[in-house]
């Protein structure tokens, strides 16, 4: 899972001398959340839709024609763009990218290859990543098992139980809380199992009989 394979490649970029109203039009018409600002091949900033809308709101709130004229006719991208935005490298992993976004609270990350902008990761790409992971279009059935201490062989055992109940396992995701990630210690994780089967109740019963409490189950309807 390298950023290069998940990013939106060759994103639209904009020049810092462009009028803000033009940037706003590009953002709206293309349904984008952020535009990297590139001057002479060098990344200078990032203009986000949120910042554009906030500026528009500030200008409107003055109820002053001259202020609105300034906003639409004089304000430039360079006046509003965030300088030195956080970027990620095209060869970083998506895990790293998600972690950076979460820690800094940013949702738009220009992707760099050396000093060139080669892509962007924004909400759309993160949605697509999650959709791929969960096989959103496959309509899988599934269960969530109560938190447990995962030991070697347990995931295999769970797979065996589910498959012997007549289901076809598609994916298993152990989920822990970010704050207790510590590779040295055993820690308790919920285990989410996704599979294809016609009757989830049979799977639920098999798991509970084997000593794995089920806290959530989903029956896919095709």
């Amino acid at each position, binding site marked *: 899972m390298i950023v290069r394979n998940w990013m939106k490649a060759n994103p639209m970029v904009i020049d810092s001398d462009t009028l803000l109203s033009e940037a706003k039009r590009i953002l709206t018409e293309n349904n984008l959340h952020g535009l990297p600002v590139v001057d002479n091949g060098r990344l200078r900033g990032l203009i986000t839709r949120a910042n554009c809308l906030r500026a528009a709101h500030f200008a409107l709130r003055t109820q002053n024609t001259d202020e609105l004229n300034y906003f639409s006719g004089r304000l430039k991208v360079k006046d509003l763009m965030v300088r030195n935005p956080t*970027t990620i490298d095209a060869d970083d992993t998506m895990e790293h990218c998600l972690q950076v976004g979460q820690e800094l609270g940013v949702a738009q990350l220009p992707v760099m290859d050396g000093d060139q902008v080669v892509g962007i990761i924004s909400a759309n790409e993160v949605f697509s990543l999650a959709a791929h992971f969960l096989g959103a279009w496959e309509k899988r059935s599934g269960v969530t098992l109560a938190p447990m201490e995962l030991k070697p062989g347990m995931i295999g055992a769970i797979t065996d139980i589910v498959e012997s109940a007549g289901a076809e396992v598609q994916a298993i995701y152990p989920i822990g809380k970010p704050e207790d990630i510590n590779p040295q210690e055993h820690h308790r994780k919920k285990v989410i199992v996704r599979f294809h089967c016609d009757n989830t109740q049979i799977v639920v019963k098999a798991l509970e009989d084997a000593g794995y409490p089920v806290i959530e189950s989903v029956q896919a309807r095709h």
Partner: protein
Amino acid sequence: MGSVSAVEEARAGAGMSGTTPLVCWFEEVNKDSVALVGGKCSSLGELINAGVRVPPGFALTTHGYAQFMRDAGIQSEVNGLLEGLDHQDMDKLEEASRVIREMIESRPISIELEDLIAESYRKLSVRSCIPAVPVAVRSSATAEDLPGASFAGQQDTYLWIRGVDSVMHHVRRCISSLYTGRAIAYRMKMGFPHEQVAISVGIQKMANSLTAGVMFTIHPTNGDRSVIVIDSNFGFGESVVSGEVTPDHFVVNKVALDIMERTISTKTVCYTVDQREQKSVAMEVPFERQNVQSIIDDEITELAWMGKKIEQHYGRPMDIEWAIDKDLPAAANIFILQARPETYWSEKPKPPASAGAASAMEYIVSSLIAGKRLS
């Protein structure tokens, strides 16, 4: 992964956590920061930290200035131009000054420095709730190169500057004001090396002033410390500071805050903003307003009260610039733009109130009258 840590490093370098910040907010400095941000900005920081209502802003520090000069690489060229000039030959100095100032103003600000200034400007705009907020760009001299009142008037101030490009341009013009003919002559006379002087530039949110002016917490003509004297005119305070108009003049009792004396003058000119062009212009005061009092009595009282607080904070008479914003409601619209210690009267030696100390009793009486500071 490398890029994230690079960003963090850049942030650490930009903030006050670095040992030599290139840009810093007014609230991060105080009156002891003259060497870092010059007199004007450090006094603004002091006022903000004392709880006085001051428009927010930030400063390009003297380190930022030094960085600019290093990046531009023109210091030796500048010194070369000034080599062998006579400090009394003003024509030659003015010519050298013009060449140097043109040189400084034509050099680009490095991308790193521009990013720091522009990012602070953007944050200031967000804080002020106006995109590309109008600012005043002012040079803020450090004490040793341009001391005292004689030079205060000639440091550059640019009003109602909007947009990153314009801010950058005027920051450079403020930097180049370090090389006016008079400043060069002064340094030559005093023997200060040109490469050791530094200047800071303050970028402060512009108050959209309806009325502005100056206030002394001492009577400037006779040194009477029991009064506060306020001069006011419509528009920005520059018309009052420069002496271009005869302002309205009020004398307020410092204890009771009563207006004891009022002189309403005919005010012909004021500086205000041309909203369409978004720049500061001088304009004629409309005829019907020329003889109208430019500040209402309640505001005079409020202002005098603020002056008293500032005097208390500094413990000496002050010379204060103020403005009343037209976009804000009463009671939240009076801003202090600058406060500096009054120098003329407060540095004058006071004649003893009771002369002579022939006997012990006379000595005690005279020191009772004069008063003594114990702390």
